[in-house]
């Protein structure tokens, strides 16, 4: 391997820009952030649903374009979701739930414009700083990952799954149960090693397993729409956002500066950890800001720090979530898991070799993040009026269209009506689960990572001649397994000790 210093990285980055700034990839980037911003703004449809809707289309694209497009949707949604939170007190996605607290108060005080502007700026700063982190940390992780054998992969994936299960909003026990069910659903279909078909219940269409798109659309598209129909009925607002009202005062900017930087630190530190997505990063940032504030009572009454910090944190976390995915091939959030599956479908083996074998993907994607963040800044400050107007469209006109697109999207993957029936079943089950506080995200991640877990487990078993304890003797896999075990024990312990219901959050 070449030694890489700062200069080398810059050269690579320039190469990345040459990949993105072709007309084709630039258009995908623009399309991605536009769509992402749009679904982010609209309550009741999130990045996961949007990415899964686009998955069938990306099968026809170059892998680089596919990741640029899907990635754009992912972080674009983080920008957009705060708009609805500020104007409607209704988060466009869960990572902006905390922005409602002070953002909506600012809106009520007639400072909606300032809140929107600061949000966009904080998102930009958090996001772009996190790209630096991505650029410098991923190569380090990759070097580390080259020493990985299947035992280490098994341990790392297991740790990721346990983390995803334990760190949910609801009960960690339910989270782990969801991961387990996801893994089980993932075993449906062909067994990769022996080639036998499993759990197909005699249904021919299940021989290849359950389609990722059907799974994600059912859990996140259909179930989310059902849950949102009632929640969004009769929302309206009268706020006018003029360009002039966007301009923050010097005081606003000064107050937002440090929270934004701290938000980046929190988001950058939590983003790469599986299970801690943008949502938790934003909550952590809000809690931090409130704790260190001189006057905590201002929070909840339109404190600008409570908008800047979390928005910076969730964007930083969204970008940083790409680190484990691009270096190890292990995603930590549902959206990056879907992007990973898009890569697998296009024949790319996501993992440490990807950066050397397909530098165009890695550096192209990194450069596209820069381009995308700049586009989003333009989309969200001078063009914010557009999004405000889109929010005026009532949900009753939108959701039938969303459902139709879901249907067409799922059908077009294999031209199979069976997949649409699957979405129907998964959507119904997903909605019922949601109402019982079972989170869908761990299920989806379990489903995507399950087969990887199994393959690596069985390979590791083969190389160690069936000796389970060999895994604990290797230093890296041993450590990872130990961490996983500790996490599991701590989670279960606190779960049984608390025995109290998790704080009811407004969904």
């Amino acid at each position, binding site marked *: 391997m070449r030694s890489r210093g700062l200069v080398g990285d810059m050269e690579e980055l320039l190469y990345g820009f040459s990949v993105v700034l072709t007309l084709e990839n630039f258009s995908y980037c623009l399309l991605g952030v536009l769509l992402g911003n749009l679904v982010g703004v609209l309550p009741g449809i999130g990045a996961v649903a949007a990415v899964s809707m686009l998955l069938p289309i990306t099968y026809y694209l170059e892998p680089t374009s596919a990741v640029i497009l899907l990635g754009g949707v992912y972080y674009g949604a983080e920008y957009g979701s705060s708009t609805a939170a500020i104007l409607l007190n209704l988060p466009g996605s869960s990572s902006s739930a905390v922005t409602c607290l002070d953002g909506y108060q600012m809106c009520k005080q007639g400072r909606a414009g300032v809140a929107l502007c600061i949000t966009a700026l904080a998102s930009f700063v958090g996001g772009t700083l996190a790209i630096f982190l991505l650029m410098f940390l991923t190569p380090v992780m990759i070097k580390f990952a080259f020493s990985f054998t299947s035992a280490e992969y098994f341990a790392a994936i297991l740790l990721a799954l346990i983390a995803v299960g334990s760190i949910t909003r609801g009960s960690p026990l339910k989270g782990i149960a969801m991961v*387990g069910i996801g893994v089980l659903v993932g075993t449906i279909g062909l*067994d990769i*090693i*022996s080639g036998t078909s499993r759990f197909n219940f005699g249904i021919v269409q299940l021989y290849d397993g359950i389609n990722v798109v059907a799974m994600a659309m059912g859990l996140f598209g259909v179930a989310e729409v059902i849950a949102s129909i*009632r929640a969004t009925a009769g929302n309206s607002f009268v706020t006018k956002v003029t360009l002039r009202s966007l301009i923050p005062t010097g005081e606003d900017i000064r107050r937002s500066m440090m929270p934004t930087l701290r938000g980046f630190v929190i988001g950058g530190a939590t983003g790469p950890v599986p299970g801690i997505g943008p949502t938790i990063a934003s909550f952590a940032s809000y809690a931090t800001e409130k704790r260190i504030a001189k006057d905590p009572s201002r929070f909840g009454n339109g404190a600008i720090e409570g908008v800047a910090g979390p928005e910076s944190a969730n964007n930083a976390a969204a970008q940083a979530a790409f680190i484990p995915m691009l270096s190890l091939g292990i995603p930590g959030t549902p959206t990056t898991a879907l992007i990973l599956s898009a890569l697998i479908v296009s024949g790319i083996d996501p993992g440490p070799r990807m950066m050397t074998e397909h530098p165009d993907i890695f550096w192209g994607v990194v450069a596209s993040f820069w381009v995308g963040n700049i586009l989003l800044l333009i989309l969200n400050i001078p063009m914010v009026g557009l999004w405000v107007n889109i929010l005026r469209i009532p949900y009753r006109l939108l959701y039938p*269209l969303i459902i139709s697109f879901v249907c067409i999207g799922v059908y077009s993957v294999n031209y199979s009506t069976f997949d649409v029936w699957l979405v129907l079943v998964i959507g119904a089950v997903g909605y019922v689960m949601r109402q019982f506080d079972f989170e869908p995200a761990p299920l989806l991640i379990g489903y995507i990572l399950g087969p990887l877990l199994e393959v690596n487990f069985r390979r590791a078993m083969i190389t160690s001649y069936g000796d389970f304890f060999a895994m604990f003797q290797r230093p890296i896999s041993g450590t990872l397994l130990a961490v996983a075990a500790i996490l599991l024990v701590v989670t279960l312990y606190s779960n049984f000790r608390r025995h109290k219901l998790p704080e009811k959050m407004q969904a």
Partner: protein
Amino acid sequence: MIAVGLAFLIGSYDLDFGSPEQMGPGFFPVLAGGIVVLTGLGILLSALGTADIPFQKMEWRPMIAIIVSLAVFTICLRYFGLIPAVMGCIITSALGDRTSRLYGVIILAVVGSVGSWLIFSVGLGLTLYAFKGTGG
């Protein structure tokens, strides 16, 4: 109580699932199945311990409307083609919201179906027929 029922459901569902076929391909699912059964029991136990049920009210109307609309789409697509399928899907799913108005829904159905035909069939070149003879 309902949570308890669900926990049972998960438990038994996965017990069923976890039954092995052969040692080779069946080994891993049994392991995972066992873990799910255990956590299912755990949820059951902690649900027994609390009187409160983490249960949000089910919204039957939207749920049924959406599910039926998916079914309508599939059936119509098979026998009549894309445009009727999208129209049917939009109309049935719109029934899920009580505030939907007739004219709005009809306009939406027409615009949505023609629009999706233009985007997916013409624009993206997917093989979807706008209209189709029965049995095609």
